[in-house]
């Protein structure tokens, strides 16, 4: 479970995040939806402790992430905005490197890596150097390395960016499997359809603030619109930056 309260982050004169609060529960997929530049990536970077907030609280499974960032990171699997791989290492070696950095022992490392390679259907590419991988193969590898320590919580920043339809469907299926295992999944997106199709709980972010939050039904009711798309536009107050 991930809880954030009143997060604030300022870069010079720009106030990127202005008091964001939400909870991402276990066994649920929570989506941060908002136009580009709304503060989604910064919010995620704050909660996976890459950046330090100016104000606010972050809890990951009861661990205070600001007081003990190392313990919080160990409970988080993160697919960040940057998903560069080491191109002279094979996909398996990329995954194992992060497993070692997470402190896995040799036996668990082997087990977890084998399992992820199988679940993500990476058997044919596991031994290949990642140089020349397709976007889909890169994302798979990046997700596997984020999950190699079997974290309870998974944070994904725009996970389907650049993926084709087949890869997107495969990724959705995989996220639903993880949800069924009772994990907490938090993803950001600027694509309404994706959030609507996948998320149990939606947090709409605009201009660094939470504009609205709730299940898709709740959001429709809140806006008084029958279509989710109209509800989003109404709640955000503009169509700008959102993709259908």
């Amino acid at each position, binding site marked *: 479970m991930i809880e954030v309260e009143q997060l604030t982050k300022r870069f010079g004169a720009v106030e990127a995040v202005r008091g964001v609060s939400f909870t991402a529960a276990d066994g649920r997929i929570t989506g941060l939806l908002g136009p580009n530049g709304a503060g989604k990536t910064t919010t995620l970077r704050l909660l996976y402790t890459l950046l330090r907030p100016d104000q606010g609280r972050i809890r990951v499974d009861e661990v205070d992430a600001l007081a003990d960032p190392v313990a919080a990171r160990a409970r988080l699997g993160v697919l960040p905005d940057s998903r560069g*791989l080491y191109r*002279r290492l094979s996909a398996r070696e990329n995954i194992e490197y992060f497993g070692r950095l997470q402190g896995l022992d040799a036996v*668990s490392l082997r087990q977890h890596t084998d399992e992820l390679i199988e679940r993500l259907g990476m058997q044919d590419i596991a031994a290949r150097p990642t140089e020349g991988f397709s976007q889909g193969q890169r994302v798979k590898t990046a997700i596997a390395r984020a999950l190699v320590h079997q974290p309870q919580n998974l944070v994904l920043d725009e996970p389907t960016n650049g993926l084709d339809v087949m890869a997107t469907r495969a990724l959705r299926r995989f996220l639903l499997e993880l949800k069924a295992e009772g994990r907490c999944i938090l993803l950001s997106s600027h694509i309404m359809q994706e959030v609507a199709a996948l998320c149990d709980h939606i947090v709409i972010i605009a201009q660094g603030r939470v504009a609205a939050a709730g299940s898709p039904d709740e959001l429709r009711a809140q806006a008084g619109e029958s279509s989710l798309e109209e509800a989003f536009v109404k709640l955000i107050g503009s169509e700008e930056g959102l993709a259908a």
Partner: protein
Amino acid sequence: MKRTATAIGTGWWTVFVKEVRENLRDKRVLVAALLYGPLLGPVLFAAMMGFILGKQQEESTKPLELPVMGVEHAPGFVDWLRRQGVVVEPPLDDAEAAIREQREDVVLRISADYGSAWSQGQPARVDLLFDSSRLPAQTKVSRVEALVQGYASTTASLRLRVRGVDPSLLNAVQLVRQDQSTPQSRGAMLLAMLPYFLVLSAFVGGMYLAIDTTAGERERASLEPLLITPVSRARIMSGKLLATALFALASLVICVIAFVVSMRFIPVAELGLSVDLGAATLAQLLLVVAPIALLASSAQTVVASFAKSFREAQTYLQFLLLIPAIPSILFAINPTRPEPWMEIAPLFSQAVHINQLLRGDPVGLATLLLAALVTTALATLLAGVAVRLYQREQLALGG
């Protein structure tokens, strides 16, 4: 989930092993660290030294080949030259052009009125054609000058004697040139540059890693995932720095060994260097240069940390390559005895000690250790700076 606390504590080792393994697969890195970096210096040095020494020896000992124009005007003089061992070559069509086009270094031209001037006891004219801007011709010019002067004074003495005058009256002052230069001092400039050739190899050997582990990580967007693992940034940086230092050290060690081996094939004794360096000297040399591996890695990592791309970092680091040349250049320009502080100051101490060791001069172990310590201290300080730079928030943002 099984997790060993020690594994996170030794995260630097994981980073170190990965960096070494990954870079061993990169041909560019291997060529730079194991071939180009370490061998460039010794090869360059051997070539320069072989050329300079070979040239000097050759010019001063081999028979003098001299094209002479107008042999028919002074058969006596030319016979005398031949008796002095000069190989008199046939005249040329255009002596001036031959000099200009560097086909000949020196040409002697006997003037047509030589004979008549000679028989009247007047100075007989002989022209010496050469190009003073050509250094290799200098030795030949002085040899010919000396020969002509010798013939002239011998003849003058004879003439005076015939007239009953003591020839020594002409020499009110006798100037005797006593050149105190030795091959060693003539090669001093080259010798002063020698430590740079060794130190340079550390910089070349570690360069790619220093860039790859900093600017490279940012450019390929692999830094953010790395920074959100439970391993602290200081440990990540330590692992990266040590990997860079390992490649720099490998380059240095190969360089020193290559140098010691190549000394057997070049006439280093002419420069006053010991030809046969024992294992003890080799060990001392390695002690002198090893801290440079760490110094080069930290300095390069610090500089590369400011760059956003591989190319940008490469540009910065090329300037850094010139810094270790400073002590060597100073010693080359002003070859005085080193000041006491130079014995321990980083880069200076290596320049001083490498020369002393190669000459076979005794160097105190305490001094060597102190110098190594000072260099290591500076390297550690720079490593600290590199870690600080790694802690910056902007680094994570890739901006």
